């Protein structure tokens, strides 16, 4: 989607056009959900958080000034919701089991041991570092985009990426040693 297309869809969504907003959600859900899945570590909750982030974003769309990209702005909303949320897990269990079923059918990709080791190591990272790793290493956001989303200085983001990557690599190596 070009920036012009995005601006046109945002303008239409501001006027209440649900089709335009659906197109925006469709274009950016992968990045926002991917980030929150890695940050929250709990799949179904992460998708609920992403949904809440998109709903909140539509309600606050009049406040979007366009200084960052739409996906960065929604990711920032998602990050703040995820950080503050204290949620019950009942609603999430159904989708969790659906995802687990889906994972059983995945033939390609990372070995299960690697995924578990990385997931555990991610869970042990401090919140900000985990968010930076999820954004930059997981979803390919630039360092400056991550700084904008998380309201952190660029230098802090860079050091979080370096340290986070080291810790995750160490977790993989430790897992090999077992």
């Amino acid at each position, binding site marked *: 989607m070009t920036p012009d297309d995005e601006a046109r869809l945002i303008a239409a969504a501001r006027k209440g056009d649900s089709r335009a907003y659906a197109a925006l959600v469709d274009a950016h859900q992968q990045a926002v959900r991917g980030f929150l*899945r890695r940050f929250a570590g709990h799949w179904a909750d992460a998708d609920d958080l992403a949904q809440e982030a998109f709903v909140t974003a539509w309600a606050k769309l009049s406040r979007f000034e366009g200084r960052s990209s739409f996906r960065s702005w929604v990711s920032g909303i998602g990050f703040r919701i995820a950080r503050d949320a204290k949620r019950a897990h009942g609603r999430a269990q159904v989708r969790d089991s659906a995802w687990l079923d889906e994972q059983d059918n995945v033939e390609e990709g990372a070995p299960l041991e*690697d995924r578990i080791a990385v997931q555990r190591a991610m869970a042990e990272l401090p919140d900000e570092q985990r968010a930076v790793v999820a954004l930059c290493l*997981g979803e390919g956001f630039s360092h400056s985009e991550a700084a904008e989303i998380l309201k952190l200085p660029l230098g802090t983001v860079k050091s979080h990426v370096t340290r986070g990557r080291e810790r995750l690599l160490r977790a993989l190596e430790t897992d090999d040693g077992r």
Partner: protein
Amino acid sequence: MDAEARLAAALGAASAPARDPGFTLAVIRAAEADRFKAEALRSTLTSGAVAAAAACLALMLAGWASLNWSGVQTGILGAGGIFALVATARLMTQRLAPAAVR
């Protein structure tokens, strides 16, 4: 596979699908449900405020009427007189009009 590649693959396993109409639909439905709730709340609050204002006005009027009962009686009689006068005038106009045509 080296550790960097393994890390990339392990992180990539948590990615979301590129297209997910179900998710998009869920977002739009949730947003519209939120809007409906907000509209309903606004409408309830508006009706409540109007009802409260009307009740206050009625109470004030009742209080004033109990303190000035003789004035209220005069007012009611005056209004009744005017109503009777207007009704008589209308009745007469209606009866006289066909006679004038003839």
